[in-house]
C-alpha cells in the first residue's frame, strides 16, 4: 500500500485548508472542511446545488475569506499562480474586444502564449470578437487565458456547464492533458457526476456544506453517503470519457520517479499527505 499514496506524498501541497467554514446571514454555507490541494492532482468537488462547492473553490483561490478555520498557501517565492475559469462569464456587447486581446489581459507572458493557444486549440478564434463565441469556445478561451500564467493551480468552476456531451469529454481530456504536461494541481467544481468522476484523482462529495465522503472515484461511488445522494447507478463506468486511471504522475515526463499504478485504492484519504511542507 505504499504506491500512489507515497507518490502523492512527495508532491508539494499548494494549499492547505483546515477546518474551514463560511457563514452568510446566519446560515452555514461550509462547515469544518479539511483539504489539501496537491500539485499534479485533479480534485473534483461534487454535490447538489447549494452544497458549498463553489464556496469552497472561492476560498481556495482567495476570492473570499473563511469565517472559521484556516487557509494556508504553501508556496515559496511569491504568490501562488492561479488560473481560474469562472462559472459565469457574461460577455458585454458594449465592449468591443477581440479574443486575442482578451486572453492577453492575463499579463506579460510572451513565452507561454503559443503553448496556451495551441493546448486549447483557440488559434482560429483569436481575431474574432469575444462576443461572437459559442459557449464551448468561450470555455476554451477562458482556459487559454488561465494557462497563460503557467498556473500552479487550475481552478475550474463548472467548466462543462452548457456544453454538449462530446465537448464535455474533450474538455476533460484536455484538463487531464494539461495536468500531465504542467504538473499543476487542478480543482474542478461540478455536478456533472459520471463524466467528472472518471476524470478525477480525488473526489470530494459535499452535502450542505460538509464533506459527505471523499476519496478516489471508484471508492467514492461505493460509499453509502454518495449513493444516498446520487443513487448507485452513476459512476465512472457510465462516463463518456475516462482517463486511464493509472497514477497520473507516471504520465508526466518530469515526474519519472513515480512509477505507481494502484493510485485509486490507495489515496482514499488526503490526510496521508505530506505534512512537512513550507507553510506560510
Amino acid at each position: 500500500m505504499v504506491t500512489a499514496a507515497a507518490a502523492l506524498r512527495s508532491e508539494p501541497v499548494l494549499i492547505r485548508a483546515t477546518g474551514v467554514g463560511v457563514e452568510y446571514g446566519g446560515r452555514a454555507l461550509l462547515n469544518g472542511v479539511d483539504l489539501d490541494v496537491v500539485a499534479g492532482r485533479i480534485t473534483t468537488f461534487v454535490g447538489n446545488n447549494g452544497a458549498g462547492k463553489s464556496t469552497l473553490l472561492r476560498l481556495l483561490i482567495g476570492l473570499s475569506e473563511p469565517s472559521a478555520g484556516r487557509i494556508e498557501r504553501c508556496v515559496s517565492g511569491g504568490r501562488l499562480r492561479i488560473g481560474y475559469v469562472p462559472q459565469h462569464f457574461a460577455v458585454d456587447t458594449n465592449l468591443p474586444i477581440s479574443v486575442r486581446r482578451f486572453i492577453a489581459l492575463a499579463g506579460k507572458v510572451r513565452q507561454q502564449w503559443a503553448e496556451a493557444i495551441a493546448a486549447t486549440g483557440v488559434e482560429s478564434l483569436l481575431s474574432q470578437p469575444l462576443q461572437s463565441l459559442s459557449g464551448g469556445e468561450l470555455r476554451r478561451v477562458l482556459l487559454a487565458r488561465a494557462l497563460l500564467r503557467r498556473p500552479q493551480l487550475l481552478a475550474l468552476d463548472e467548466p462543462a456547464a452548457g456544453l454538449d456531451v462530446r465537448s464535455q469529454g474533450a474538455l476533460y481530456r484536455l484538463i487531464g492533458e494539461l495536468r500531465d504536461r504542467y504538473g499543476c494541481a487542478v480543482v474542478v467544481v461540478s455536478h456533472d457526476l459520471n463524466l467528472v468522476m472518471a476524470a478525477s484523482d480525488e473526489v470530494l462529495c459535499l452535502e450542505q456544506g460538509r464533506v459527505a465522503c471523499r476519496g478516489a472515484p471508484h471508492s467514492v461511488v461505493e460509499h453509502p453517503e454518495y449513493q444516498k445522494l446520487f443513487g448507485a447507478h452513476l459512476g465512472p463506468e457510465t462516463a463518456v470519457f475516462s482517463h486511464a486511471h493509472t497514477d497520473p504522475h507516471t504520465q508526466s515526463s518530469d515526474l519519472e520517479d513515480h512509477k505507481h499504478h494502484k493510485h485509486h485504492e490507495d489515496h482514499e484519504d488526503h490526510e496521508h499527505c505530506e505534512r512537512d511542507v513550507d507553510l506560510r
Partner: protein
Amino acid sequence: MLIFDELMLFALVAGCGLALVAGPLGSFVVWRRMAYFGDTLAHSALLGIALGFLLGIDLNLGILVVCATMAVLLVTLRRRQRLASDTVLGILAHSSLSLGMVAIAFMEGVRVDLMGYLFGDILAVGVSDLYWIYGGGAVVLAVLAAIWRPLLAITLHEELARVEGVRVLPVQLAFMGLMALTIALAMQIVGILLVTSMLIIPAAAARAFAQTPEQMAVIAVLCGWLAVLAGLLASFQWDLPTGPAIVVAATLLFAVVTLLRGPVAGAAVR
C-alpha cells in the same frame, strides 16, 4: 456668415478639451454600466457649489471634494452592504441635488446663476477656466492611461482579474476619482444635469465603429468634438442655450449612427 469671435473660440477650445477627456472615460462608464452612477456624482456637484460658497473656497474645489467623497461613499456602500445599486443611487442623486438647492437658498446675499450650474454656461469660459480644463484633463488622461489595462480586466470580469493579481479596490477608487474630477471639469460647459450625457452619448455612438476598446475611446473623442462644434454653431446661429445644444447635437449623431449601423454593429459579427 459665421464669425468666430474670442468668446466662441474659448468655448470651442473648452468644449473640445472636455470631449478629449470624456471620450475615454465615458467609454468605461458605458462598459461598466455606470451612467446612473455618473449622474449621481454630477447631481452631488450642486452640494459642492453650496459648500464652496459656504466656505468661501474655489467652487471647482468644492465640487471635487463633494464628488470624490460621494464616489468613495458609493463604492464602500456597495462593497459592504450589497445594496441594490440603483435604489441607493436614486436616493443619493436626488437628495444631494435637493440638498444643494436648499443649502444655496439658505445663503443670504449669495446670488447664484442656478441655470448656469444646471445646464452649463460655456460662453462664460475664460482663460483660467481653460487652464483648469486642460490641466485637470491631462491629469485624468494620464491616470486613466496608467490604470487602463487593470481597469479593462476588472470591467470584463472582476473576480478573474483579482485571481490574476489585479488590486481591484485601488483601481476602482482611482477610476471614481477620475469621474469626480471630470464632472468638476464639465460643470461649466454642460452643467450638472447634462454632464453624464457628454460621457455616455459620444461613447455609445462610437461603439458602432469600434473593434477594440482603444478605438472606441478615440472615436468617442471625435464624436464629442463633432457634437461640441455642431452644438456651438447651432447655438450661435439660432440663439440656443449652448450646453443643451451640444447634447442635442451628440444625440442626433448617435441617432444617425444607430440608424445607419445598428446599435452594436461590431457585436453582430459572428
